[in-house]
């Protein structure tokens, strides 16, 4: 079994699930920034994606160049089968850990806010 996903990798994968066909550097970064409220650096996204591609979690596909990008092409990412499996395991693990204490966690979050 592969190692557990890191937090950032976990985020990137969830973003891939959300974005479906439109997952490339900018959209992934925007998605994570919008949902976590953190500022993300696009290079970090690419580094994570490159690592996951090496592990066989994601696949990439080169798109068409656009004028807005100065004539450069996009690189679209998609979850691979192994990635889905890893994501599921990671998600299950998290869910197992949080089972039964959801309301308590809500309180902690509120208390901190």
């Amino acid at each position, binding site marked *: 079994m592969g190692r557990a996903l890191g937090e950032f990798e976990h985020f990137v994968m969830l973003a891939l699930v959300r974005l479906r066909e439109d997952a*490339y*550097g900018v959209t992934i970064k925007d998605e994570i920034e919008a949902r976590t409220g953190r500022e993300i*650096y696009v*290079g970090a996204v*690419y580094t994570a994606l*490159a690592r996951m591609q090496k592990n066989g979690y994601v696949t990439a596909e080169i798109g068409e160049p656009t004028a807005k*990008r*100065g004539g450069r092409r996009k690189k679209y990412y998609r979850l691979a089968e192994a990635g889905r499996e890893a994501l599921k395991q990671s998600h299950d693990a998290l869910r197992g850990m949080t089972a039964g204490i959801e309301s308590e966690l809500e309180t902690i979050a509120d208390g901190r806010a």
Partner: protein
Amino acid sequence: MSAPAAPPRLAQWIISVASPAAEREFWLGDIEEQFADRAVEDPAAARRWYWRQAKRTLAHRLARRSLRDHIENTWQDARYAGRSLRRSPGFVVVATITLALGIGANAMIYAVVDGVLIRGLPFEEADRLVLLHNGYSDGRPGTWLVSFPDYEDYRVGMTSFDELAAWQSATPALASEDGQVAQRLDAADVTANLLPMLGIEPILGRGFLPEEDTPDAAQRAALLSHWLWQNRFGGDESVLGRTILLDETPFVVVGVLPRGFTGVSGGFILPSVPVDVWLSYRSSFSRGGMEERGLTNVNILGKLAANATVEQARSEATAVAGALDERFPELRNAITPKLHVAEEKAVADVRQSLLLSFGAVSLLLLIACTNVANLLIGRASGRRREMALRTALGAGRLRLVRQLVVESLILAGLGAAAGAAIATAGLELLVTSRALNIAQIDTVAIDGRVFAFLVALAIAAGLAFGAGPALFATSASPSATLRSEGRAVAGRRSLARRGLVVAQLALAVVLLIGAGLLLRSLEEVLRVDPGFRPEGVLTASVQLPMDFVSAEWPRAVEFFEQYEERIRGLPGVTSVASAYQLPTDSGWNNAFEFDLTATRPRELAAGEIYSARFNPVTPGYFETAGVRLVRGRTFTADDSAEGARVVIVNERFVERYFEPGTDPLGARLNYGSWWQRESPPEYEIVGVVADVRFSGRALETYRATYFPHAQQPVRELKVLVAVEGNPLNLVRPLRAALEEIDPTLPLDNISLLTDELAAHEAARRSLAVMLIIFAVTAVTLAAIGVYGVMAFLVSQRTREMGIRVALGARREDVRTMVLLSGLRLVLLGLVVGLAGAYFVGGVLDSLLFGVDSADLATFVTVAAFLGIVALVASWIPARRATSVDPMTALRAE
């Protein structure tokens, strides 16, 4: 859709360089897309944001790239470079040899510079060692030794020295234990404080005790050199306490000095020959003259006190000398002490030839680097497609440049390895040939420091010749290169190569002119008449034991008469004579003072005294050595101890001390050796002989006087034997003849007078030869460079030439056209080089003899020679290009 603002270019470049090659396009695209969105709202803020991204990319990149990645990448580069170099072995060999010559020559000369100029003398606190000599107070040049009583006065009267030591060299014969022929040793009589002052401690036994350094010491003490201990006493420790006989005088061995310490550290400081045995001054051979204030035979070496300066020491010494002037006015005429820092004095004479050699090898390395840069540019143009392809496949430019630079560094490494071999061999040659006249040269070696220099040099050279071509090879955009074969950049490339060729030729011209001037100068020197005829004359020296001195002079005279008589009877000998000084002994520094009684002597300047060099000779000396008699007569057997006292002087003597047109014959000269000082005898001038250039042909000679040995005996004479046939056949009989008279007396310094004469010019000759070797190497490299560039330019124009020929141009015209384009480069290189040589030629002035540093003949010859070489180098490709069939040439592309 029009973009409201473009991203900042520099920031864009930073991101481009810092992003991983494989992701670069998407990375840049993403950032630019976001920039475009932001720029719609606030272009200035967008630009600031873009810059922030650049910074983050860079930081990200630096953080991500671990050391391991670096090593891995470099290793990859090295392997790739290795593969790529293996594919062109010819290029590698040429580049390696070229670099090895440049780097090796530099390391070799650096080893000497480091050992001699930078590191200084190998003694404790060597920078505080100071020499003290006698000199003239009226500004006349020249220094000579000090008398022992004066030394004692300096030692007692000065506080700026921690120690003031004295030494004198001697050459006693060490008696063999079985009564066989003795062994002549090089000895140094030293005061007890000398060796401790230099930081030299015995490895066995002890140093001299103060009580051993007195005239009435219970025993005479001796310290052996490591060499003598090993070779004569088999390294036996029981040698301590043993009594040895030196010139039949007993000495007790008290210690052995460390290996490698022979005293040789510049003849100015200690004897210029390795010392075999060290003797305690005041109880040794020097004891005899210790009371003689007129006998100036003591070398003084002192160590400054920690807080004292040379200036202080100088004024103190001058004060002591002032007191001496008052006490001994008859001995001291315009004499003043001269102090020199030992280290400066030791290298004063060689600094220039050393720096000159360093300059020469630097030029050589520059030429070598230029050549390799040229080769690399040539190679780069062949590899632009490879580079473009790799760029298209995602390799970053930085990565490609780095890989090419790694390739250059590998070449430099190969060059350094081969260069180290060249440096080692060259240094060996340099040491044995004595091309640089440096006593310490024996201690020079390729050590860690020199090796570090060599490595640093190789890296610098690798970067110097590699960076330009690497940037060039990776410059153009991949698509342009792949489509067009990169013709667009050919112009820039060939301009760079032409520039390199011009530089190379110019450097070669400078080097060749330097070498040419030294060669012309050597030629001029060898043209000078030395004043004697050295051919076919064998020489050897015989030194009688100390007990012949003074009281036993008649026996000494008789001894040499007897020996000469025996030699005369040997087969092949045409004449024989002996002399205290050979016509080649630059050691004629024994100026003596006298009085002159003549009818019309030249008036002496205020403070001037009569002085000349001193040489007792036996009858037949002038005939045997081939010294021309100008007036009067030479010595005969009648000029004996009982005969009328006579002297022969040289032409320079007459010029200086007689009014022109005066007959010097019959004039009288009063002179007494130190033991005759009470009543100096009077000698009549009976002959005038030609001047002999005893310090070498290039140096002015001096006033000389020749006395009959019978009337001015000495205990050491050199026999001169003129021989028909091979003089070396006579060595054995000469030894045997001496053995018949005294079986224990050794015959030393057997040599040919021709060799002795050549030795004076050895340094000059070797320096010229060394520079010629450098220059010829430089010319060869430059010729290869010219050839390479011309071949390249011609290959670029093969098609054009094919068209010209097809359209009816004659091959000769095409060839001329190519040659002319080559000629332009050659001429430019020559002009720049000649101008350069003209301006830097001055550094050679003091090394030149009879030749001006702007010698027209040398300049013209060098220009013509190099011009022809360069033209031949460009003619070969020109010929080859035009011999190609036009159709083939046209089809070729």
